[in-house]
């Protein structure tokens, strides 16, 4: 220690002249001291579609999180008087035919064909219900702990048994809008949870594989090759079909999640391994070791940060696959089931061409799926492009 000080003193007195490294102008200096995350963000910001997709996804996830606040109705509340109501036009013309600033909907008159029992609705121009905001209705726990009964919008008490169906209703008179919102909870979270599991598996196994190499690497590589060479869907179908059917829906949800991630981890594992292999021989990793860093610090402080951005990008790109698979499995009747509401479950209910011909709005959950998947793909693309701000 003393030695260091002493030498330091000496060095100070004999400083070599400072070389003419540039004093940067503020703009460049900003870049010079920018953290990698900032650089990535600056690069990402330029990718308009990706930014837009990101915003869209934030909106979707917010909806999922606050589904009970935003949804006008209980997603499972049926209503014999409002089966197959088509999406309603929100109108600004009230019952007197006057324009108002407050949006509202007209009442419906139900007709039932006595022969075919077909139900049709006619707009009742004489009745107009304004949409109220922050109405007090069925109680719920916001975010699971705040007890409240305030909902974003609704028709309020004056509408009696009449309802607003922005996206129409299904065969049991359930509000499609509320169902899609609630369905987002399952469908969007299953992607994240599953990706998280995949990531854990992928990082642990891929990391072991890549950092230690040798026979561990060999075995893990063979497993990955095997999983990738087998057609996934039949396998997932078989595995989900084999989930004990006396499981509760929650267990089933996690069962499906685990099945999805069992397949999903291979791609991540491969990438993590590849990164580890590449990084392991990087000079800066060796230099860290020579600087006395122990394995854990090398992995966590040096290796992991330098591929997190890539991993985040590939994670983002693997979420849609999982969402699609969940939707597909539920659609086939092998995934989640009623009364759980997920987009796949909703689409399974739309499987029926006859029903869809009568009520095409039942396909709307499909639109939600497509938008989400598109958004994730664009976002992932943007992130991937931005992931490597140091590319020389």
């Amino acid at each position, binding site marked *: 220690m003393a030695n260091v000080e002493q030498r330091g003193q000496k060095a100070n007195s004999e400083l070599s002249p400072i070389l003419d490294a540039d004093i940067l102008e503020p703009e460049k200096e900003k870049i010079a001291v920018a953290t990698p995350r900032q650089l990535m963000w600056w690069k990402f910001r330029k990718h308009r579609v990706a930014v837009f997709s990101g915003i869209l996804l934030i909106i979707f996830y917010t909806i999922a999180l606050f589904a009970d606040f935003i949804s006008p109705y209980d997603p499972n509340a049926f209503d014999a008087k409002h089966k197959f109501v088509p999406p309603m036009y929100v109108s600004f013309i009230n019952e007197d035919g006057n324009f108002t600033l407050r949006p509202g909907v007209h009442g419906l008159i139900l007709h039932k064909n006595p022969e075919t029992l077909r139900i049709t609705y006619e707009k009742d121009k004489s009745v107009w219900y304004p949409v109220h905001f922050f109405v007090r209705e069925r109680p719920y726990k916001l975010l699971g702990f705040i007890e409240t009964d305030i909902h974003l919008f609704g028709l309020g008490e004056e509408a009696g048994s009449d309802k607003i169906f922005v996206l129409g209703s299904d065969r049991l008179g359930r509000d499609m809008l509320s169902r899609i919102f609630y369905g987002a909870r399952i469908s969007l979270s299953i992607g994240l949870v599953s990706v998280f599991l995949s990531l854990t598996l992928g990082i642990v196994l891929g990391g072991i594989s890549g950092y230690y190499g040798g026979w561990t690497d060999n075995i893990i590589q063979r497993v990955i*090759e*095997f999983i*990738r*060479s*087998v*057609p*996934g*869907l*039949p*396998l997932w*179908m*078989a*595995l989900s*079909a*084999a989930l*004990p059917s006396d499981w509760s829906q929650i267990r089933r949800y996690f069962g499906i999640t685990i099945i999805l991630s069992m397949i999903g981890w291979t791609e991540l594992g491969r990438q993590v391994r590849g990164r580890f292999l590449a990084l392991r021989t990087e000079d800066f990793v060796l230099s860290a070791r020579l600087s006395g860093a122990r394995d854990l610090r090398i992995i966590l402080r040096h290796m992991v940060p330098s591929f997190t951005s890539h991993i985040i990008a590939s994670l983002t790109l693997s979420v*849609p696959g999982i969402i*699609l698979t969940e*939707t*597909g499995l539920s*659609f*086939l*009747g*092998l995934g989640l089931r009623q009364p759980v509401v997920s987009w796949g479950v909703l*689409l399974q209910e*739309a*499987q029926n*061409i006859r029903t*869809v*011909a009568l009520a*095409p709005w039942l*396909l709307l959950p*499909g639109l939600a*799926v*497509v*938008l989400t*998947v*598109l958004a994730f*793909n*664009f976002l992932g693309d943007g992130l991937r492009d931005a992931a490597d701000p140091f590319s020389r």
Partner: protein
Amino acid sequence: MFQFLMRRSLAALATIWVISIVSFVIIQLPPGDFLTTYMANLREMGERVPEEQIAAMRERYGLGEPMFVQYYKWMRGIIQDGDFGRSMEWGVPVSMLLWDRIGLTVMVGLSSILFVWVVAIPVGVYSATHQYSILDYLFTFIGFLGLAIPNFLLALVLMWIGWSVFGQNVGGLYSPEYSNAPWSIGKFIDLLSHLWIPMLIVGTSWTAGLIRTMRANMLDEINQPYVETARAKGLTEWRLVWKYPVRVALNPFISTVGYALPQIVGGVLITAVVLNLPTIGPLLLRALLSQDMFMAGAIVMILSILTVIGTLISDILLAVFDPRIRLE
């Protein structure tokens, strides 16, 4: 080359062996043994089954014996007699039900791959040669859309349009009048007129990825000096592009078939369920839902083996085209 072939074939065999174990596990997965399921199915159909018969079947299928003995018996049956076990639901050997459908499954799969290639290669080349043009963006967008729309949803929407607009049931692979007819030109044309729908549905989800691959490969190649040289020699742009860069760009493209195959099989499967195609897909779904596990296990196994073989073939093709692969 011989070493390469041997190595790949051995690897494929090993994979198939693991698949057989996985399939066997699938057969064994449902709670209880398949006999209880079978009996329940019989009762659903209105049969009454005496206990004696149950005991007789238990004996016949070697139930109660250790797992590996059952596995051994099952494998022996497959290898010796092509006997995949008996479909509980249909009451006949699984193999009797599968072969026709496997043929059609392979056909739908191959034609989908063909479709993907026929679309993806020229579009990819165009996108690369006309980078950032309006059509390039359009193709990218459509491709992404194809990637984002689940196969079954697309099938559903097509069915719905077919039904509500044209009053036509677009499902199936044949019109009713041809379904039991022997092969003829008429039947073939009829088949083609039905085939394009599943082809389109399965294809859309894959063309996107392949267009992007092709475009990227082309961009890499097209900026190589040799292209400039060729251009300087006065080759027409058309010949210039198609003669060299496309060929080179195709190499990594061939290798994508290997990993695309498992996914295409999945796509064919789920589409077939919606469109009621007489392929293996609806059979698998039904087997799974009714826990007809010998059937399900056999289908998973056969599909997987087909995939492994397909991948092997594409590997070998690639090695023929691109000798570097062999050394890897």
